[in-house]
């Protein structure tokens, strides 16, 4: 019975994906046993944060067919909003009796960043992609991709002109010393980041699978004309998708603000990392992006551990290139789906 179920899962996800998952699992366990469980904690914390950014990217590609290269800039906007909301309360943090505001301010910062990211997403869709969609007949992927690159440049330089190129940072969000988990000391900020990204991912998943609008988003990603034919308001779904995606990136930026000070090009690393993830799992697959985020996090952590911290982008990229040579559609790729679509 259990074996049959396992075989079912195997068939559904595909051999490559299953082998990859097993290898990753073995690597995680092996390294955790030989080098210590702190690796596990590192993978989880890095994976949670990366999945927030990567899922938004996958969503935008899956639903709107946009190769979003300004995604990291939404992360940047998140860090910026968090800075301006949280830093006024920073001196409270080191007073003798930190009040409720110390705990409330980080939460406020994250929520504000999410809201601003959402609004920016709406504006981006309404001001940029909607006019482009009306005018573009073919070549949508290329045109929209170029537009996002331009948008990214404008946002980076806009940040520099308005807020300057210096680092705008807070020292930390939450009071208190590091917490001991499995022999690794985790700062309360990191712990909070893990919990927040976990909650957001669950919330996102519930939205996509249980709500009316969420199912509409999934439907649009599968067939735009079909969605129109059953009465789904396409422009609304596009706007919502862009808004959610930008909101997720901004939330990630705000949550990680204690690690990433806000400066114009802070979004570069999240952009690249989330593109690694999305390419690795196959474009437009949000659930896959979540799993892929943990894989890329694992590659990164293991590289830092065994090879050296300067290599943490090189080895994952090389691995992804290798995987793509053998499975160009990504490990959860849509080879089956496109066959089925015929």
């Amino acid at each position, binding site marked *: 019975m259990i074996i049959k179920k396992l075989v079912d899962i195997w068939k559904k996800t595909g051999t490559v994906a299953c082998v990859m998952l097993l290898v990753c699992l073995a690597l995680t366990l092996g390294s955790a046993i030989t080098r210590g469980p702190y690796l596990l904690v590192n993978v989880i914390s890095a994976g949670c944060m990366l999945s927030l950014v990567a899922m938004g990217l996958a969503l935008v590609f899956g639903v709107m067919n946009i190769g979003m290269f300004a995604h990291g800039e939404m992360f940047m906007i998140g860090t910026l909003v968090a800075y301006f909301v949280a830093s006024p309360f920073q001196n409270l943090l080191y007073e003798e009796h930190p009040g409720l505001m110390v705990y409330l301010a980080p939460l406020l910062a994250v929520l504000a960043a999410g809201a601003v990211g959402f609004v920016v997403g709406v504006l981006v869709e309404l001001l940029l992609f909607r006019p482009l969609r009306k005018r573009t*007949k073919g070549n949508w992927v290329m045109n929209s991709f170029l537009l996002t690159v331009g948008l990214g440049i404008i946002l980076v330089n806009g940040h520099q002109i308005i807020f300057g190129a210096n680092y705008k940072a807070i020292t930390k969000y939450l009071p208190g010393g590091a917490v001991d988990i499995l022999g690794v000391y985790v700062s309360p900020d990191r712990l909070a980041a893990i919990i927040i990204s976990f909650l957001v991912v669950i919330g996102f998943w519930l939205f996509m699978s249980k709500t009316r609008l969420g199912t509409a988003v999934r*439907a649009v990603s599968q067939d735009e004309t*079909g969605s129109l034919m*059953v*009465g789904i308001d396409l422009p609304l779904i596009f706007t919502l998708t862009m808004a959610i995606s930008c909101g997720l990136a901004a939330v990630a930026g705000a949550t990680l603000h204690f690690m990433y000070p806000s400066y114009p090009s802070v979004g570069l690393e999240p952009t690249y990392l989330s593109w690694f993830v999305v390419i690795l799992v196959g474009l437009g697959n949000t659930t896959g992006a979540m799993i892929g985020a943990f894989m890329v996090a694992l590659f990164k952590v293991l590289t830092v551990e065994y090879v050296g911290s300067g290599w943490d982008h090189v080895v994952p990229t090389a691995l992804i290139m290798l995987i793509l040579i053998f499975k160009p559609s990504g490990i959860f790729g849509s080879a089956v789906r496109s066959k*089925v679509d015929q």
Partner: protein
Amino acid sequence: MFLKTEALDAGYGFLQILRDVNICLEEGEFSCLLGPNGTGKTTTLKTIAGLIKPMKGKVIFNGQEIGGLAGNKVVQKGVVYVSEALNLFTNMSVHDNLLMGAFTVKDHEKIKKRLDYVYDLFQRLKQRHGQLAGTMSGGERKMLAIARGLMSYPKVILVDEPSFGLSPQMTDVVFDALDVLNREQNLTVLVVEQNATKTLEATKNGYVMENGVIVMSGASKDLLADEGIQKTYLGL
């Protein structure tokens, strides 16, 4: 008039396909639109369904102008289009596809009632309710597309090539279902077809289109008896 087009011109970009198309459907009428490949039959349906904006002319449904409305608004008014490509949600189960079809219906009771009706009409879909839509056979997918269209309680259903790619038996099943819907639910049906004999036998009224123009219209049995039609479409 229940659904009519008035001097409808439509096309893609600069390419005009339809010229001065006038179609009138009474409520509860089962009609067809015949013609050879590439004459604008599908374009006509798409324009009525709101997937293409008309260049000129009107589409009037129930006394209201619906020409130029977006597709989702047209569905809300009660006109449903079943395309030739079917446009199913291939990665969703049959059941989920049907529920998506009821997207415009807010009342859960109504959705459930309709689901039972549709499953009753297409027994095959009931057996396969958990299967992914993309993994079904052509006939089953056609049934699913029509069933999905029915889920929104439409008053008019526009079906593009119901017999395309189907075996003769399956074509019969699909036509019978449309006939049942037409009689039981008083559903207005407009089918676009190339299979002229079958269609003219099943429908009440017909239009014949050539090069984007309606060249002939009338009762189906008259069309079936018409010498020109027999020569061009029936190969007699």
